[in-house]
């Protein structure tokens, strides 16, 4: 029984789920460490906008954000990715968090510029909100949850 329970928890410690929220959409993420939550959330965000299989890794870009607390930092991080798509046309396939603490984050994003012939934006994500925002340590690592405005 204990073994079974541990197996369920192991699965949960490394999982990303998209969930419903009336007019919008949310992401839940369980991961072993804080960096992984930020990376997985960002990849889930990209996957909601476009098919990541169509994104090649041709460029990298440094991403830096800061906030007043760690939950707000998660919101800032996802909003920065949305901002970079809208203003620089940068589509990210992968991310590497270089450093993160309660107030600031530095990362590298890997991807390419948006090309109309190659990429289709299925859904415009306009903002990451503070609604149902969670980012907390768990027994297995970290859990994060956000709702995105569509």
């Amino acid at each position: 029984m204990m073994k079974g329970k541990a197996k369920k928890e192991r699965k949960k410690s490394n999982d990303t789920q998209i969930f419903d929220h009336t007019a919008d959409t949310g992401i839940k993420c369980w991961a072993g460490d804080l960096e992984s939550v930020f990376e997985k959330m960002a990849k889930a965000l990209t996957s909601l906008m476009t098919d990541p299989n169509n994104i090649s890794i041709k460029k990298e870009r440094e991403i830096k954000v800061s906030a007043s607390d760690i939950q707000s930092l998660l919101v800032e991080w996802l909003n920065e990715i949305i901002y970079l798509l809208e203003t620089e046309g940068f589509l990210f396939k992968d991310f590497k968090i270089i450093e993160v603490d309660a107030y600031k984050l530095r990362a590298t994003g890997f991807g390419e510029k948006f090309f109309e012939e190659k990429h289709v934006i299925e859904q415009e994500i306009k903002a990451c909100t503070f609604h149902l925002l969670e980012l907390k340590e768990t027994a297995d690592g970290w859990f994060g949850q956000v709702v995105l405005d569509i």
Partner: protein
Amino acid sequence: MIESIEKITDAIFRIPTSYRKGMRVPGIIIASDELMDSSFDDNAIEQVVNVAHIPGIVKASLAMPDIHWGYGFPIGGVAATDLESGVVSPGGVGYDISCGVRLLRTDLEANEVAKNIPELMHGLSRNIPKGLGRKGRIALSPKDMEAVLKSGCRWAISKGYGWQEDLETIEQGGTYDGADPNLVSDQAKKRGKDQLGTIGSGNHFVEIQRVDVIYDEIRAQIFGVHEGQLVIMVHSGSRGLGHQVCGDYIKETQKATSRLKIEIPDRQLACAPLNDPVGRDYLAAMAAAANYGLANRQCIAHWVRDTFERHFKKGARKLGMDLVYDVSHNIAQIEEHSVEGSKRRLCVHRKGATRAFGPGSKAVNERYRDVGQPVIVPGDMGRASYLLSGTKEAMELTFGSTCHGAGRLLSRKAAKKQISGADLEKELEEAGIVVEAGSMAGLAEEAPLAYKDVDLVIDACVKAGISKKVAKLRPLGVLKG
């Protein structure tokens, strides 16, 4: 929770202040027994209760019949706060500042031009950018951006997008006063630089519609609509710029809430006093973003006229393509209202609710002042939209407010589970509706089954006396992002 709600009339329900400590005013919900039983979720009603806690709120935390769960404030919520003692909250306006609707009339009879609809829709699809990942047709220089934020439709018309007389039938004459472009961040301006004149995705659209029913002949004549007529509706907002302004000021008002130790039951009700610099700055930035939203619809409407001109090889003026009205349903405005016999200036937040000022209101454009302000309510793409007018009762009950749409019933995922985009497109086309959609998944998410029955929502508003029905509009062609 539901047991605490008192039924005042068949269309007005009340949550008393005794329901929870901290409520400064009661909650008032415009609805019907059917809507209350079947489609109201407790989360949205909980939010109505939360809003009743905000400092300086006057009379009631109001909810329209299309209410659903939002961020902090419910969508379909109205809250008026006192200018001296009250607060302003970006959550009470929403992310898409000046999301709104515009209705253009024509002299065309829908039945006579039915065969033209597919080509017209195709033309609209080519002429009007959806803006998903791609740039729009207008690249704003910094100087133009300042002018758009300051003057909204006036800038657009000065550049040839639309007609001078359009200003006579737009809320606030096409420009929200008090806008300060300097209070809009560089990030917001960067997001908006290439997006002016784009529809966006989600529930935004351009629709060709037929006026199916006229309920009020006098108002219909004054608004310029008649049975059988072809009209065009545009639903869009301030795009990425507005979203950025909201996000920026949520951060600022969170700091203000903390600095001033304002007690709120939900972080997303972050606010600042109207007499605090943060509160004043937000209103000025919001007005600027709202002007961008107005200009956005002005440009889209210009290309609607252009599409019809190219198709019919006739000028848009000769086609009678005048503007019936343009109104926002995500906005906060400083307005004068009578409260317990005294005139008071209030900050009225409407998030997913439409201003519906009644006959005689000085704030209503001169052309419509005698009959009340037009209200445009987009339903869902399979069923109907409505043209209403504001009433004196609305001024007394809801600070001159009414619903804004059908209100969502199902989440996007739940909608997609019930129907695919391709099946929905087929269903709509079998019903005689031509669909041009950029995304099949996006289309499914907007399926009629995902929305409350707009007829029920409208009936509740009419029963409560806050709107009069003028016309029912049926979609013939839908353009979505």
